[in-house]
């Protein structure tokens, strides 16, 4: 194995650890909804919610970076350029994440001064990390970009997938710079902030996971480069064609001109079309290979990614994307329901699939199979579907009673919070959150053990062939 693949395994370990912290923070946040005064003044809702969301972004980002470090040497048939620097940056990244998490938990907030921005919290949702840590993350991403580009230059070779990846890294890095300015005008601030959030999630991340899935499919199913590259180019065109101006659905109610209602609604309505194409592709590939693979866990997680993306992003997103409906639904648990499903479907499942692929090679297992991966797959997905279903019920109650019937007054907000549908949805979210957490622990057990035990045939084979045992 190459050094960069060892680095990839470290990234995957860090990603899975942060995934666990995200799950715990999510359980704490959902307990806040159920029990008044839960951990009051010790670990308030705002703090656990911040931990939940920020760890979600960081574990996925680490998973993506790990996946690219895994595939780079395979793609270029050589070690990654600047690997030593990449290894140093990994530890800096982990240390920064640990310090920021400790500051969030133990310091939590500071006075409204520049010092707080630099040392405690930048105060912008999803990118709350204090400025010093944000600069650290920028450096990590810069080194990552250097690793990819310099390796391609040294190898004197650029494949189609790598060309798409390298172009994608420019906005991936550039958009993160929007995390830095502290603009005092709320409308202006939100306008640029959505560039970061939306264009990361619905453009640059989509392309990044598209590249990663293309590389994964070649390894998992032996699909030819010509096929995955042709399909990647089509998907990139469609995703960017609908996703970039789909940004407008975040501009409906933040003080931007009214033409965004039309632009956002129109392009958002087109967003499910390429997702349907992805579903067709997934089913075709599954059928073409007759579901035969040496790595079933990775295969099933890839399938979950295609369907989860379609239902979470397409169906749940389309329910609330037209302005006339979004007027009532934005900012309710309905949005939360869509967000959970879409992130899990589009990104979470993909990262887990790549981890299983990497483990097969790292553990030199001809077939990757276990009982526990099936349990974790079922528990995580049932837990997730249960959570988003429960949140949908709560969100519908909020949109109906608080927004449509109550006119969004404070009293209407309070009434909706006590509405029986809202309360039951919130309780069920916690219950299914528990199911999801159980799935996480089984997943961790499986990732630690799968492929370690050899079958008799696998143990004998190298000896018969005269290779090292």
């Amino acid at each position, binding site marked *: 194995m190459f050094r960069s693949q060892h680095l990839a395994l470290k990234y995957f370990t860090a990603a899975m650890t942060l995934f666990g912290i995200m799950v715990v923070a999510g359980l704490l946040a959902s307990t806040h909804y159920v029990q008044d005064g839960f951990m009051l003044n010790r670990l308030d809702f705002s703090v656990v919610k911040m931990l939940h969301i920020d760890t979600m972004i960081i574990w996925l980002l680490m998973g993506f970076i790990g996946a690219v470090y895994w595939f780079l040497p395979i793609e270029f048939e050589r070690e990654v350029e600047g690997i030593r620097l990449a290894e140093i940056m990994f530890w800096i990244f982990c240390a920064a994440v640990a310090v920021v998490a400790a500051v969030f938990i133990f310091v939590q907030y500071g006075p409204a001064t520049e010092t707080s921005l630099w040392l405690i919290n930048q105060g912008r949702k999803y990118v709350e990390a204090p400025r010093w840590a944000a600069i650290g993350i920028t450096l990590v991403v810069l080194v990552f970009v250097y690793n990819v580009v310099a390796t391609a230059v040294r190898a004197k070779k650029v494949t189609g997938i790598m060309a798409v990846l390298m172009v994608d890294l420019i906005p991936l890095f550039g958009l993160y710079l929007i995390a830095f300015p502290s603009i005092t005008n709320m409308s202006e601030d939100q306008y640029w902030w959505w560039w970061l959030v939306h264009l990361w999630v619905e453009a640059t991340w989509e392309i990044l996971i598209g590249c990663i899935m293309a590389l994964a499919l070649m390894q998992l199913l032996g699909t030819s480069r*010509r096929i995955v590259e042709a399909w990647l180019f089509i998907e990139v065109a469609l995703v960017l064609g609908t996703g970039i101006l789909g940004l407008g659905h975040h501009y409906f109610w933040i003080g931007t001109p009214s033409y965004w209602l039309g632009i956002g609604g129109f392009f958002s309505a087109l967003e499910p079309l390429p997702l349907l194409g992805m579903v*067709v592709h997934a*089913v*075709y590939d599954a059928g073409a290979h007759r579901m035969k693979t040496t790595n079933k866990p990775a295969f099933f997680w890839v399938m979950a990614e295609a369907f989860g993306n379609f239902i979470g992003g397409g169906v*749940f997103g*389309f*329910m609330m994307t037209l302005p006339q*409906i979004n007027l009532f639904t934005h900012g309710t648990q309905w949005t939360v329901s869509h967000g959970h499903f879409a992130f899990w479907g589009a990104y979470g499942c993909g990262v887990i699939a790549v981890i299983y692929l990497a483990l097969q090679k790292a553990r030199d297992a001809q077939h990757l199979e276990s009982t526990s991966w099936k349990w974790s797959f079922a528990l995580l997905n049932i837990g997730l579907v249960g959570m988003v279903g429960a949140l949908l019920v709560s969100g519908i109650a909020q949109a109906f009673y608080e927004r*449509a019937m109550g006119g969004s007054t404070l009293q209407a907000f309070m009434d909706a919070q006590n509405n029986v549908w809202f309360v039951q949805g919130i309780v069920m979210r916690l219950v299914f959150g528990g199911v999801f957490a159980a799935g996480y622990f089984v997943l961790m057990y499986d990732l630690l053990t799968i492929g370690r035990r050899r079958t008799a045939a696998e143990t004998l084979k190298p000896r018969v062939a005269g290779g090292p045992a």
Partner: protein
Amino acid sequence: VTGTQMLGISLLLGLFVLLAGCYGLLYCLGRLRENRNLARLARTAYLLQGVTAGLLALSALDFWWKALLLASFVAYLPIPPLTWRLLENLHQPEESHS
């Protein structure tokens, strides 16, 4: 749009895309297994999507959104067969080579 209308419309919008997904999935399964019943079910799912589009056309949505929904209903029809044909064309040289 009133609260009740909002609920009805949003559920229909979700159903609209879900039925498009069912159409795509059943179409693929029908082609894979060369099963006419599945192909028929795919067509039924698409027809139901058309019914959903019709109901949305009668809803309180603005005219242009209704027009967009009807246009996208038409656009969903060729996606599974076109994608399938494209995938077959892409795979064909590999399969004939092997």
